[in-house]
């Protein structure tokens, strides 16, 4: 796309090369290489145990790779940073099982995610500025929870929790969003709406979506990476990938 500027090793937003990690001898990721360009949206598929979640753990600092390079923004080595530091760099994550703060109101969930300094002193003497309140209101509108803002997040339905979590990602305003199975457990209608929401987000963010639902991926209409046994099996448009014999064999050919 564009050539790296001096000091940058790559022009990619996210650059994984030769990454391996094993747990008690089990190789969860073996020699995984993957690049995400700025502004790109990528779907990642693969059978259970292909290493999708482990890959996300590595990018977000939860798991340290045994070997390999993980670079963000061309020059930042993510393997040296912890979860909080990586989150503050601008990498947001949505979990497979929706994790919102059940005992906080919907509005407070967004407030906690809102991009701001995360130090003890700043949060102790926090006052929400007008611009920040407006941002919270906007996000509540986008995820269609504006009328429910005072409700506890724990009382939301499964689909609403998924949206709230996407809203929290928006509030973080990350450069890169990692979204793990956003359509899991949703009705068809909700799934379609989620696809629209994600496409809208992808306009000004880079997004990685891990998903099982082929219909959902087709609706997103983006480049697909197929993982198998911890490394990339195929990459390309969905039609091309689903025509690949190996992919059919390990994943699609039930």
């Amino acid at each position, binding site marked *: 796309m564009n050539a790296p500027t001096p000091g940058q090793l790559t022009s990619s937003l996210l650059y994984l090369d030769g990454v391996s990690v094993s747990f008690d001898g089990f190789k969860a990721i073996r020699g995984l290489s993957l690049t995400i360009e700025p502004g790109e949206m990528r779907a990642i598929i693969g059978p259970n145990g292909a290493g999708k979640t482990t890959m996300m753990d590595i990018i977000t600092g939860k798991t340290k790779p045994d070997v390999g390079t993980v670079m963000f923004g061309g020059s930042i080595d993510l393997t040296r940073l912890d979860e909080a530091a990586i*989150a503050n760099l601008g990498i947001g994550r949505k979990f497979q099982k929706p994790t919102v703060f059940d005992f906080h109101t919907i509005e407070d969930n967004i407030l906690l995610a809102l991009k701001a300094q995360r130090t003890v002193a700043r*949060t102790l003497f926090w006052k929400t500025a007008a611009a920040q309140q407006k941002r919270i209101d906007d996000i509540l509108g986008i995820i269609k929870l504006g009328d429910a803002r005072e409700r506890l997040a724990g009382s939301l339905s499964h689909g609403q929790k998924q949206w709230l979590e996407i809203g929290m990602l928006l509030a973080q305003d990350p450069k890169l969003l990692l979204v793990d199975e956003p359509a899991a457990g949703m009705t068809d209608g909700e799934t379609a709406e989620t696809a629209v929401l994600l496409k809208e987000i992808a306009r000004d963010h880079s997004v990685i979506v891990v998903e099982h639902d082929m219909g959902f991926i087709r609706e997103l209409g983006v480049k697909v990476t197929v993982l198998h046994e911890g490394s990339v099996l195929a990459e390309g448009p969905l039609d091309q990938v689903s025509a690949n014999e190996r992919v059919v064999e390990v994943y699609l050919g039930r």
Partner: protein
Amino acid sequence: MIARFLLQDMDRRGAVFLALIAGLAILIPALNLLVPAGSPFHVPTSTMSLWGKYLCYALLAISLDLVWGYCGILSLGHGAFFALGGYAMGMYLMRQIGSRGTYGNPILPDFMVFLNWKELPWYWYGFDSFPFAMLMVLLAPGLLAFVFGWFAFRSRVTGVYLSIITQALTYALLLAFFRNDMGFGGNNGLTDFKDILGFNVQAQATRAALFSMTCVMLIAGFLIARGIVVSKLGKVVIAIRDAESRTRFLGYRVDRFKLFVFTVSACMAGVAGALYVPQVGIINPSEFAPANSIETVIWVAVGGRGTLVGAALGGVVVNYAKTIFTSGFMAPYWLFALGALFVFVTIFMPKGILGTAQDWWEKRRRPAPAKTPEPAPAE
């Protein structure tokens, strides 16, 4: 700015609590000092000091609720911070005795003379000064909590493992303070106090002042704890309690937030201990006993975890019950009663006295309450 921080979003429950304690601070000493002893309205000095003791426990309970109820850190060693604050106050009171001790040594406390010590250990220096001693009341527990928490929270020790090491912490201190050569009076601890700030500790007026001071510190402790929990930091802390790794992925350094509330809480427990010692007249290593810390957890659970006011209520109610139980024919059964109470509250009133009362009240006002999520199980 401080007033705004302390009073932001004051709710009715908090306001009632503050008014009640402020009323007690004036009323009880007045009934003690101004009403003649024969009158039915007279409050005896011993009763006043007993209630002063309960209020110290209430402050300890609030400090534990701050870390357990809001941050999910089940500390089974909060009695250690209470006792350290108590020892700091006790050391000041020992130095105030001067040459009035049994052995008449103007510098050394009696137990040091008895042990044939020739000079004051370095760590007793400065405790003849009240401001220094008060600084130590905050610093000794605060510093211990900071160092302990720094290691524990950075290493991500959580749940039952953290509870066990807090329990070990207080047990280790119990053993250490039992030793004579530690220089804290060993088994007997520190006692036979004479003066505080030049006033006789036994005097009725001094007792009344100590009671009022306890109320003032309980109010201060409550306001600080409340200021913390209603701030955005308080929301972060609750988030940590309910979904720690999610909070981390939002970019919050969980260990620092835990360290902050743990240290503040330890200082608060220290203040409670410092007020307790002159009112009961003794501090000894038994205050470090693991059972004390566990009892504190029971007070908070009984009163209502995560409510601050409930914790204070639990501290008073359970200790009042203890006084009644342990002074009559039922004395041998107190521990059974305490255990039964804990089991009863855990099973039938998981939100404690205050939470249950509040639910009942809301149900009466609004027949169909909004569905609220079940409270997370106590770790």
